[in-house]
């Protein structure tokens, strides 16, 4: 019988071992990229409704070479899919950096703290702490909403596990999880005037990086970032702005009225309506958004959510010029 092997996810691009580098919270590539001051890219993976591991690898295929970490969603929109944990396990074993998403909707504190240890043991370096959409919008509205934690108390709990090495009960961990903690932000929806204060609270609760919901209204986001800079928050956490291509005006309208927390200005919908090829226009719009967001001071990266349009992510990142910029920076550093 072959000896049991410890799974050792590695980073093929940098060939860096798993122990966190000096001064880092985790071994994750995303953290290294951000701390180097490079403009980071993360992307959301469309989770399969399947028990076949090949479906996960296939879904990750268009994302793995263009982003620093792949977000594995946790039943987003309260719709049932393969679990974030399962996806993270499969991807981290083939060396793809992942962001485990934990929503407070489905699991209580006992399940979550155990999951975090399990995830860290598998090599997951990034965990995104979310409140989660209400069960009513999903495919199983009869489910019991748990919400034992909220995203803040979840963040603080994971920070306590990592930094103090204990469960919330006070029981000691023999090896604390080395994790880079993320939180979500939604700058474009009410109460807009307090969204930056809420971000401050999340950072105080333990967030190291932030991934925002879709930004389609750059003006609102600019004002938000102005407030974030005034409060000095961009120096305390890495902020990744959420973007994504929309397929058509119809999809945009549907998203606006059916997905909680998405603000799409009328001007964007109008532009898609007028376009001859709305799909192409949606892609172009996304690239423009990335380039505009790239210019805003204090933004550390983008988070691409291309639901059912993952095949476009590569082109979007390529055309936005982020990676070529990074290659130049890297060559400059090497030479």
């Amino acid at each position, binding site marked *: 019988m072959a000896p049991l092997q410890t799974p050792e996810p590695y980073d093929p691009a940098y060939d860096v071992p798993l122990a966190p580098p000096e001064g880092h*919270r985790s071994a994750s590539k995303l953290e290294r990229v951000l701390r*180097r001051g490079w403009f980071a890219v993360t992307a959301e993976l469309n989770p399969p409704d399947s028990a076949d591991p090949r479906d996960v690898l296939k879904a990750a295929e268009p994302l793995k070479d263009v982003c620093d970490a792949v977000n594995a969603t946790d039943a987003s929109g309260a719709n049932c899919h393969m679990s974030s944990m399962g996806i993270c396990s499969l991807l981290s074993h083939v060396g793809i950096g992942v962001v485990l998403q934990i929503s407070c909707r489905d699991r209580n504190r006992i399940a979550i703290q155990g999951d975090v240890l399990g995830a860290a043991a598998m090599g997951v370096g990034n965990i995104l702490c979310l409140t989660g959409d209400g069960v009513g919008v999903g495919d199983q509205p009869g489910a019991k*909403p748990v919400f034992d934690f909220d995203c803040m108390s979840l963040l603080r709990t994971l920070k306590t596990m990592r*930094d103090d090495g204990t469960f919330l009960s006070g029981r000691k961990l023999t090896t604390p999880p080395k994790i880079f903690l993320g939180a979500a*932000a939604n700058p474009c*929806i009410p109460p807009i005037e307090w969204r930056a204060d809420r971000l401050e609270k999340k950072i105080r609760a333990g967030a190291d990086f932030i991934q925002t919901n879709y930004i389609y209204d750059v003006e609102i986001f600019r004002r938000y970032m102005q407030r974030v800079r005034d409060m000095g928050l*961009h120096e305390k956490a890495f*902020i990744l702005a959420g973007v994504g291509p929309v397929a058509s005006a119809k999809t945009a309208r549907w998203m606006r009225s059916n997905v909680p927390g998405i603000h799409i200005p009328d001007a964007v919908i109008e532009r898609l309506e007028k376009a001859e090829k709305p799909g192409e226009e949606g892609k172009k719009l996304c690239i423009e958004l990335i380039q505009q967001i790239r210019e805003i001071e204090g933004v550390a990266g983008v988070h691409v959510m291309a639901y059912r349009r993952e095949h476009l992510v590569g082109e979007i990142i390529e055309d936005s010029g982020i990676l070529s910029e990074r290659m130049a920076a890297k060559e400059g550093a090497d030479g």
Partner: protein
Amino acid sequence: MYAVRRFAVRHSRFFEGFYRAFERVMIGLDPLFSGLGYERIERPVAFAERHVKGLLFDCKMCGQCVLSSTGMSCPMNCPKNLRNGPCGGVRPGGMCEVKPWMRCVWVEGWDGATRMRQGAERIRVVQPPVDRSLEGSSSWLRVAREKAAERRAARQDREDPGKLVIARAFRRARLFEPAAAPLAAEPATALADQAVSERTSVYKANTPAEAVSKETK
């Protein structure tokens, strides 16, 4: 009742002052409560609390009242039971994601907080998760017990840090709302104190600001 609940938020400043005075009275009565036995008065006080706060705030008797830190808008009325601010699903006009006919509890809460003396400061404090085993018990008595115990402890030993992990992890919350992370012994269920080791790690990581300055160099 929804209308009364919103009235209370509009008059959050009055209720803040009232609560502060009421809290002082409750703490002053601690010797009396101890004499009578907290267990014996728990049920009648909880009964009164349920009805008074139920009328005013639609109180859900979580037993760990944090109204003064939430702009006098009870967070347990949030369908997601959020204790730390609005979720990302608030609808245009500040309506709730799950119950679209209701104003978001936290949009109301921030409103209330800005009217209060300490509201804006206290709403920024990270609140611990609710201890569900305290549901239905009186948080008035818990506040009296906690604050009185804290004062006794402060007299005895000023160096003593919190004893439980939650109290330490959510230190600021406890400072303002001791009932949110109780340390004093519960009358019925005694929680064993556990010592917590010192912090195991101290990070000296690049902040985003340092990363940027390195890049520009």
